[in-house]
């Protein structure tokens, strides 16, 4: 009885339950929703949000927020085709360069937050504004088409019928879960998020860990950018915009406290799937953009009531 009760107090489990419920009801009521191909497609879309939200989860666990995730995804998707040299048949050089740029942007965010003491929300907001301007200068208004074979493989390949994006997400998930719950560094992130002062007095370096989470967030946003590019085959200004808010929403829907210190990536995973499912259901209803926007907002609010409540003061 106690195990059952504690399971129902467990936000990640509740979110997972909600996803299962929505999928089962939708499969019975909507033609084609429950088809294997469709569900697989939803998971593939969720993979991008999930990977971008991996870094976001770490930043939020430490009590910050990363508003540059969308901009970093766009930067990666636009710069990768430009930095993929023709002499490299594997395309791995382009991927390495793009990931290095994304990671570097994350490092700069971290440096601003750690050394200049700019609050993360401002630092990453300014970085996003900065990148937005820089990108238009670099790329102009036109879309760039990707010919990098490794990126296309990542976007299109289906070993054993499972899209490569989903496999990548699995790998990322395992890595993040191990990092947060099995490694000392994860414990330091959580400690800093729960009580920065106590953590610092216990010898946890705020500077080093702030640098670390933001760098990781840049890296995962870059990874999400590469996956998006592979699935779209085109990069353009604004391609990453939808992922900023969805990455934050996935983290919060997964039961992680926006104030830091409490939560797990295990909740973000069903959170990302829930968001994609919600969007898919709204598309099925075939409403005007205004109504679609209202439904999306209302659903996020309703889902929050189930899973995202802060503890009583």
């Amino acid at each position: 009885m106690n195990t059952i009760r504690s399971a129902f107090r467990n936000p990640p489990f509740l979110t997972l339950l909600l996803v299962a419920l929505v999928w089962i009801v939708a499969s019975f009521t909507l033609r084609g929703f429950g088809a294997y191909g469709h569900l697989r497609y939803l998971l593939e879309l969720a993979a991008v949000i999930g990977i971008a939200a991996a870094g976001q989860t770490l930043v939020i666990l430490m009590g910050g927020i990363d508003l540059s995730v969308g901009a970093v995804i766009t930067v990666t998707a636009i710069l990768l085709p430009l930095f993929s040299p023709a002499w490299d048949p594997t395309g791995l050089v382009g991927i390495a360069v793009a990931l290095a740029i994304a990671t570097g942007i994350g490092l700069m965010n971290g440096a601003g937050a750690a050394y200049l003491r700019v609050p993360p929300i401002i630092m990453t907001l300014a970085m996003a504004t900065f990148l937005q301007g820089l990108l238009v200068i670099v790329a102009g208004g036109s879309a760039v088409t990707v010919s990098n074979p490794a990126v296309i493989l990542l976007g299109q390949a289906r070993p054993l019928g499972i899209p490569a994006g989903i496999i990548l997400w699995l790998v990322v998930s395992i890595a993040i879960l191990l990092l947060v719950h099995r490694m000392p560094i994860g414990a330091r992130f959580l400690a800093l998020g729960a009580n920065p002062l106590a953590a610092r007095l216990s010898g946890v370096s705020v500077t080093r860990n702030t640098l670390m989470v933001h760098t990781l967030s840049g890296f995962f946003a870059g990874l999400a950018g590469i996956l998006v590019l592979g699935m779209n085959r085109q990069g353009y200004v604004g391609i990453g915009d939808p992922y900023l808010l969805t990455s934050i929403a996935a983290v919060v829907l997964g039961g992680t406290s926006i104030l830091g210190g409490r939560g797990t990536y295990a909740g973000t995973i069903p959170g990302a799937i829930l968001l994609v499912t919600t969007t898919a259901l709204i598309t099925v209803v075939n409403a005007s953009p205004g109504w679609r926007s209202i439904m999306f907002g209302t659903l996020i609010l309703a889902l929050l009531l189930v899973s995202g409540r802060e503890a009583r003061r």
Partner: protein
Amino acid sequence: MSASSPMRLYGSIQLRRNRGLAGLYLVVAAFLILYAMLFPGILSIGGFSKFTQNWFPLALVTMAQALLMLNGGITLAIGPLVSLGAVIAATTMEGALGVPGGILAVALAGLSIGAVIGAIVTHLRLPAIIVTLAGSFIIGGVALILLPRPGGFIPDWLSTTLAGHTPVAFVLLVVILALWKAFLATPLGLGIYAAGDNPVGAFRSGVPVERVKVVAFALSGLLAALTGLFVAAQTGSGDPVIGTPFTLNSIAAAVLGGVGFLGGKGTMRGAICGSLLLSVMINVMFFLGFPPVAQYVAQGLIIVGAVAVPELLAQWKARR
């Protein structure tokens, strides 16, 4: 104790609050002088009116944002609320009740939407940033349904009154600031600061922390919706997405003005100065022929600089 003692206390408190803003005042003054040298037209009545009309919407949304940040909150729904205000103004003013009805509708919508968001944040104990994020989708959707594409109707005389060649916008801003000052003198207004600085302490001292929060959200919604009314009068029509840039700019201006994220720290005059700085910078860059994209780059650098430079100075001073 002499009779002038409370006045002197008030003066010395205000002086101390201004001290932290001295740097900001200097920078704003420098930018204004630069602006006046580049474009002497600002010194005429017409030029001054146009300049303040450009600044007025940003000043209002910055007040709306700063009000919540002082109370320890934040809203991401400013932009959609501005759009909704513009749309409501443009769709109701041709109705039976005319302009007064339109203004009333905008004000009521802003107040009630703000109050509902505030009630959700306070009573359901959800984080403000996420509630306003979800709220921004809903409000933006309503604006799109009311007016799917730019259009609607604003009477010409209203546009000329608010955004013509007279500094009405500036006078309105002064009036609104005076009202804010008066509001701060009431227990409820003081409670906004108190609850932002230390919610538990404020609660134990008898501040109705929850009511204060709902009021802060409602007033913030009112200011944002009225900004929409002004923007609609400025452009002569309603546009369901016109408010979008205001969300981030309102946060940037408030932070430039020294309003902290944790509540209770900062002043409204600082926030207004921050919005003036941002507005002048955008104007100067525009007139100097910077491409719009370079403005983004510069804006990003300036926001970081504005927060980082005082911090670095403080660290440097502490080390010596």
